[in-house]
């Protein structure tokens, strides 16, 4: 398989996964803000931080008002973080590798693009936002459904999968990173304790992990358990360990490259060895940074091994 095609499929996976995650992130933040008292209101700024887009955002908007952030994340063509940009880039990619994917992929991707173009403004309006975002999420899930049920498990599919898994691992870590800073801050003040839980619940919800968590943990939502679940659980598809293990299992189907294997193994070891309880007391942010570096390392290793062959 051509390096360029592999690269494109990998990024197609990443952009689609990113679009879906972003839609969830915006939904959940909206809910959270309705429940929190003014003192702990974090507003919309954290979403920009989660996506690492502080600079870009500042260059386009004066302040992080709800309207600005939502526009930036949903329909702003200038914003690389917007769902519209992710979908468009995925679409451009699919256009160049149309022959490696089922025809329906192209059609479904066009549907999402049209939806964003036609109804994107509804997302800006609180009253319609929920419904609109749900449609975006549904459309993404439909697309993943088309891919998993119709695409041969050939090499191309493996690259697509590497992309979706790496993106999910990355997103999960980012969400935890930004949200936990605020949570630790909440913990310090006795009178705000009651609101700690709903914030952890919202973290779970942004990753559609709430029900799965309840079934597995069976206790009330608690910070360290949430962390453990989202970082280390072996069965929940959006946990970081789960995503990395999936990537690891994909490798035997590709030409052997030790560097990629090593990068994944190293990051997995870091995650598995982590003592989550003590991290809650101290060093969580640094630890999550380390995981992020590990994930970036996997991305680099993949790129060197497969996408730049010369």
């Amino acid at each position, binding site marked *: *398989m*051509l*390096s*360029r095609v*592999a690269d494109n499929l990998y990024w197609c996976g990443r952009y689609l996964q990113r679009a879906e995650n972003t839609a969830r992130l915006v939904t959940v933040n909206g809910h959270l803000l309705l429940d929190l008292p003014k003192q702990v209101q974090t507003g919309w700024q954290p979403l920009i931080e989660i996506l690492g887009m502080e600079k870009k955002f500042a260059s386009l908007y004066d302040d992080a008002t709800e309207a600005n952030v939502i526009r930036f994340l949903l329909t702003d063509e200038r914003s690389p973080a917007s769902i519209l940009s992710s979908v468009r880039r995925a679409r*451009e990619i699919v*256009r*160049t590798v*149309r*022959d490696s994917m089922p*025809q329906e992929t192209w059609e479904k991707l066009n549907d999402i693009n049209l939806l964003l173009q036609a109804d994107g403004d509804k997302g800006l309006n609180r009253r319609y936002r929920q419904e609109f975002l749900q449609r975006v999420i549904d459309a993404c899930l439909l697309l993943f459904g088309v891919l998993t049920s119709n695409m041969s498990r050939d*090499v191309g599919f493996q690259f697509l999968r590497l992309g979706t898994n790496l993106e999910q691992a990355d997103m999960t870590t980012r969400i935890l990173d930004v949200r936990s800073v605020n949570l630790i801050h909440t913990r310090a003040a006795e009178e705000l304790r009651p609101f700690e839980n709903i914030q952890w619940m919202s973290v779970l919800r942004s990753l559609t992990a709430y029900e799965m968590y309840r079934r597995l943990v069976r206790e009330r939502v608690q910070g360290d358990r949430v962390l453990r679940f989202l970082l280390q659980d072996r069965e929940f598809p959006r946990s970081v360990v789960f995503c990395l293990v999936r990537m690891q299992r994909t490798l035997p189907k*590709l*030409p052997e490259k030790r560097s990629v294997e090593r990068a994944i193994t190293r990051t997995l070891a870091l995650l598995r060895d982590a003592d989550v309880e003590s991290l809650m007391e101290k060093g969580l942010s640094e630890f999550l940074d380390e995981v992020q570096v590990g994930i970036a390392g996997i991305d680099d290793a993949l790129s060197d091994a*497969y*996408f*730049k*062959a*010369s």
Partner: protein
Amino acid sequence: MGIAWGEYKSDSYDELFEAPGQARPAGRKLAKYLAELTAQELSERRLAAELAIKVMGISFTVYSEGQNVDRSWPFDIIPRVIPKAEWQRTEKGLKQRVRALNAFIQDIYSEQKVIKDKVFPRALLADSVNYRKQCEDVKPRGGVWAHVCGSDLVRDRDGTLYVLEDNLRVPSGVSYMIENRAVIKRVFPELFETTAIRPVDDYPAQLYDTLAELSPRSGNRPNIVLLTPGIYNSAYFEHCYLAQQMGVALVEGPDLFVDDDDVCYLRTIEGPQRVDVIYRRIDDLFLDPEVFNKESVLGAKGLMRAWSKGKVALANAPGAGVADDKVVYTFVPKFIRYYLDEEPILPNVESFLCYDDKQREHVLENLDKLVVKPANESGGYGMLMGPKSSKKEREKFRELIEANPRNYMAQPVLSLSTAPTLVDGGIEPRHLDLRPFILSRENPYVTMGGLTRVALEKGSLVVNSSQGGGSKDTWIVDTDEGDE
């Protein structure tokens, strides 16, 4: 009721009717069949064709349209019919022509006998924008430079088929020829049972064989790729289509690299993979930034090096465009006599060369009657249609011609034959041309018919899809068979 053929009249030679209500022998069954369809049935077939085109994803790309680069292929459901006997003669003529063209290209890059023998003036070569010094003394296998040629044929009022031009660089359109047939089979399946229509679908296999013959390595299955400029090219659909049909990789410039050993490689996830043959669909000047356009990201550095050392084959060969020039065109009948010692089977359209003082004078005096063409444009760009031009346009061309006479030639306006075409108000005659494709190799191949392009606008003579043209399926019909 159905079509009243008696009311159908064309001012030009009509491909289907010799007189009102009287179809030509090869088209009789078609005309009869269409006359039996009701208006409603006809419009249903038309819708079915449009739907088929959408579902099959047949599209072409229009440049200046921003994001929306794909457009459905404009198609007319009434086929154009050519009798087999006429086609056999045309096929012979095309093979003859391309043989002479290849001989000319080979000669011009080596001994230049054609110039020494005063058949072709040296001055014309000096000004040629498609002559490539880098190709001098290179000898591609079998002396073939233009492996794929698309020649445009037009029929004048008297019924003679003329060659209007030869496209030797990156001719396109062949995929539409094949897809048109697939659409028509869905729309009029009944007609294929009663009429002996020659199939067209083996072109990709023939192209593959032509390319495979060029491989510099013997033995193993050659590694063939199709090099495309990418999704913004107007023929991207065709590139995908041909790559898929031949089962070869569709690659872009950055997928290729040439190493110090002058071998061309493909970047794959398994590491570098040697390439034997490149069917390139990008222009010479973008092929290799080392030699040509330094800014080009469409080609690959060192490709010319690899090609001239025979490590990779390029089809068409770089520099083949030297013969794809509307001025060189006028010499083709002479080339046929000179290189092959044969009489041309297919005539050229009468042409006036502006570099010649006398001929230029004639052209400038008759700008309002002639079609003036620049030597090196394709797609119908940069032309002057004399009878339809304004005074201002003619003045502009007068200046252009005087500033650069070598770059212009002129031809009388041909009336171009017509064929019945389904338009909003019913069925009317529309002008058309024909582009067959010729594959040059030891045993040359010509497509069965070719791509018929039709000017959908009433009275228009411009058939290019980029300028409002559409197409028709082209039938080579065997009248000896069956019950006629």
